[in-house]
């Protein structure tokens, strides 16, 4: 049951020329959120831009007593709304509707959790990693970015005990190239009997590649998809993903309510 909060910006930190991390005082949403869920934000009054935009809940911040008090958003500038988020000032209010969407299904040990993140696709994995590690699940983060300076929050994951496999396109950190390459290798090297759940978030091409790799190695895979979303609540049918139904037919599924987390092997990647 999503709520709409005129959330105060507690702090906004630029992480690079494109990325920023903004903390929003939205305790009700923070308390209810599960890993993989998202919020619909609008950082301006008026019509320019008009619609809200979807953002994964990156972290849940807690007060001294451990009660959720705020959430953070990891945002990458690509257009008007993310520009507004980048420039947001402390004290400003941002309309924040959430939590929304179907979260990740969390596994239990001895299943391992392997997270595959491309760029800003890191966003849903901070809370997922916390949940997995709270259950003592062995967790690995495959994380690819353009360059070393765009690999964020590594210490956070290290502190949780998450194994890191890093790649950059320019080779400035980790392996050079795409993040799916080491994923493929590690899956190939892994004992067939040792269970792994794959979680992926990132550009569509990366998700499709991950889905192919998962299928090849016969591993279950949950992907968090990104579609342009008009409403986030199932009202507009803008956010559909073509999926194979039980009847074998092609169906357009609303990723805001049936997702954003979907089973990779049911998506029709064309």
């Amino acid at each position: 049951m999503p709520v709409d909060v005129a959330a105060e910006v507690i702090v906004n930190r630029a992480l690079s020329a494109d990325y920023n991390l903004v903390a929003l005082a939205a305790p009700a949403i923070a308390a209810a959120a599960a890993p993989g869920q998202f919020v619909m934000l609008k950082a301006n009054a008026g019509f320019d831009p008009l619609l809200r935009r979807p953002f994964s809940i990156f972290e849940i911040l807690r007060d001294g007593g451990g009660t959720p008090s705020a959430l953070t958003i990891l945002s990458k500038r690509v257009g008007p709304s993310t520009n507004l988020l980048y420039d947001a000032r402390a004290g400003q209010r941002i309309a924040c509707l959430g939590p929304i969407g179907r979260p990740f299904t969390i596994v239990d040990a001895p299943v391992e959790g392997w997270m595959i993140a491309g760029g800003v696709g890191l966003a849903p994995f901070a809370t997922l990693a916390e949940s997995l590690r709270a259950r003592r699940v062995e967790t690995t983060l495959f994380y690819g970015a353009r360059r070393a300076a765009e690999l964020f929050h590594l210490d956070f994951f290290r502190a949780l005990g998450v194994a890191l496999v890093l790649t950059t396109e320019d080779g400035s950190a980790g392996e050079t190239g795409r993040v799916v390459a080491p994923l493929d290798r590690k899956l190939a090297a892994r004992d067939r009997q040792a269970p792994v759940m794959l979680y992926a978030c990132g550009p569509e091409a990366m998700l499709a590649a991950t889905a192919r790799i998962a299928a090849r190695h016969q591993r279950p895979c949950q992907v968090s998809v990104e579609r342009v979303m008009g409403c986030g609540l199932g009202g507009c049918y803008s956010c559909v993903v073509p999926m194979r139904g039980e009847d074998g037919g092609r169906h357009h599924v609303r990723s805001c309510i049936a997702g954003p987390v979907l089973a990779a092997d049911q998506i029709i990647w064309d």
Partner: protein
Amino acid sequence: MDLSVRIGSLLLKNPLIAASGCFGYGVEYADVVDLSSLGAIAVKGLFLSEREGHAAPRIVETPAGMLNAIGLQGIGVRRFVSEKLPELRARNATVVVNVCGTTLDEYVEVSRILSDAEGVGAIELNISCPNIKEGGIQFGCSLNGTYDVVSAVRKVTRLPVIPKLTPNVTDVPSFARAAEEGGADAVSLVNTFLAMVIDIETRQPKISNVVGGLSGPAIRPIAVRMVYECRQTVRIPIIGMGGIADARDALEFMIAGATAVQVGTANFVDPFIWTKLVDGIRDYLQRHRIARVSDLVGTIDTHASATERSGV
């Protein structure tokens, strides 16, 4: 204060209707909105059978508006009746069903099925969707087509019949008149404006269907004009829409001549808009000492303007 309005035999507790295609089948919003608090809910357009609609991307934002080409994805009228209507009924929602067809017979058949179902308040005939090639708009862009669909559906139902008119024609009032002559209880206007957006980097259209329908505040002044013109032309009630984003906008449509209004795009921006709209209308009526919201309908005063004009 009386907020109720009447559309044919249908009494709405207030003039606010969720616009078709912008509120799913209503049930999606049951968590955030008390569905019975709305005047009515116009559910997503329904054909006889299921449709998957167009490929994504289906929407793109435009200045103060948005373009959509969903392609009328839907579960078909029968599944709607069996899977969605019971919950809507249980939640005391007043339901307007947006009826689509690729042929006249399909409009009639869908309407007949709905007339036999329990819990449908009215039929809105979608003869104006700009996003599908076959059917729909071909009726809505022809006076005879409009008359024919309306009168054919009129014959098979006692429910109020409300054709939804397209703004993509030279003379909307003549279509309102054709609808009235065909036996419509009211007309809805406007559906979206046919439009397109091109990505200059790829030189490809930004939505998969190439063209789509423009909605949102951008179109409001055109829609208000069309409601105003139709109010001068027909006697049946008009349900006005196009870019309503707050109570002032809703009131503007009513003053122009709308008996009720629909809100689509703004519901995406603020799904909690409905109580704000009701409160804003109440507040206005109180300030202006108007007892019934229906007393406001069509009360636009063009006299002062005319005087000034003649002075020039």
